[in-house]
Structures are given as structure tokens and as C-alpha cells.
């Protein structure tokens, strides 16, 4: 563990909250960006599994006669 001695310099009471906050902010940002820019996260959160991906309109007439 080559970084194990960093806590002799950085106070854990500062470094650990900063580390956890960085993980939380990064994770939140990625999920927020996905929620805002895609349809499938909204579909997932609304319980719309399988209904998220819109069927290609061309596929439907092929089934009909």
C-alpha cells in the first residue's frame, strides 16, 4: 500500500469526508446526466422495463396484414 502513509500528512477527519463527498458528487453527476439525457433511466425509475425502447415503426406493419 504505497499511499497508506498519506494519513500522517492529511487529517483523516478532513480527507475521508472529502473522499466520500467526491465519490458521492461524481456518482450523482453521472446519474443526473443519464437521467436528463436518456429515456431509459426515466423509464426504469417509472417501472417501465421493456417499454423504454421505442419499437421501430417499420416493424409494426410487417406484423399486420
Amino acid at each position, binding site marked *: 500500500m504505497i499511499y497508506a502513509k498519506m494519513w500522517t500528512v492529511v487529517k483523516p477527519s478532513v480527507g475521508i469526508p472529502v*473522499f466520500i463527498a467526491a465519490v458521492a458528487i461524481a456518482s450523482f453527476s453521472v446519474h443526473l446526466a443519464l437521467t436528463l439525457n436518456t429515456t431509459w433511466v426515466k423509464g426504469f425509475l417509472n417501472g417501465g422495463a421493456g417499454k423504454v425502447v421505442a419499437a421501430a415503426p417499420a416493424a409494426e406493419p410487417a406484423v399486420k396484414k
Partner: protein
Amino acid sequence: MSSDKVGPSGLTEAESEEIHRNLIQGTQIFGMIAAFAHLLAYIYSPWLK
């Protein structure tokens, strides 16, 4: 002994290494839970299709 050396944060090298071990373990457990949650979400509703 070098592990009794106190750094600017007031911790010895032994204490620092102990904190780091626990932080690494916590990160690994968090990562495994997150990977499992993503796997379940992917099984429920595959993305990028």
C-alpha cells in the same frame, strides 16, 4: 521504530496504515455492492440497446 513517527496530521505511520486499510476495504465493499446493484438494474432493464 519508523512506525512510531508522528506526521503533520498527528497520526503515526502505523495508525495511518490502519486507517488506509479500512478505507480500502470500505471502498471495495461499496464497489461490490454498486456493481451488484448495476447488474440487477441491467437484468431488469438492459441499457444501451
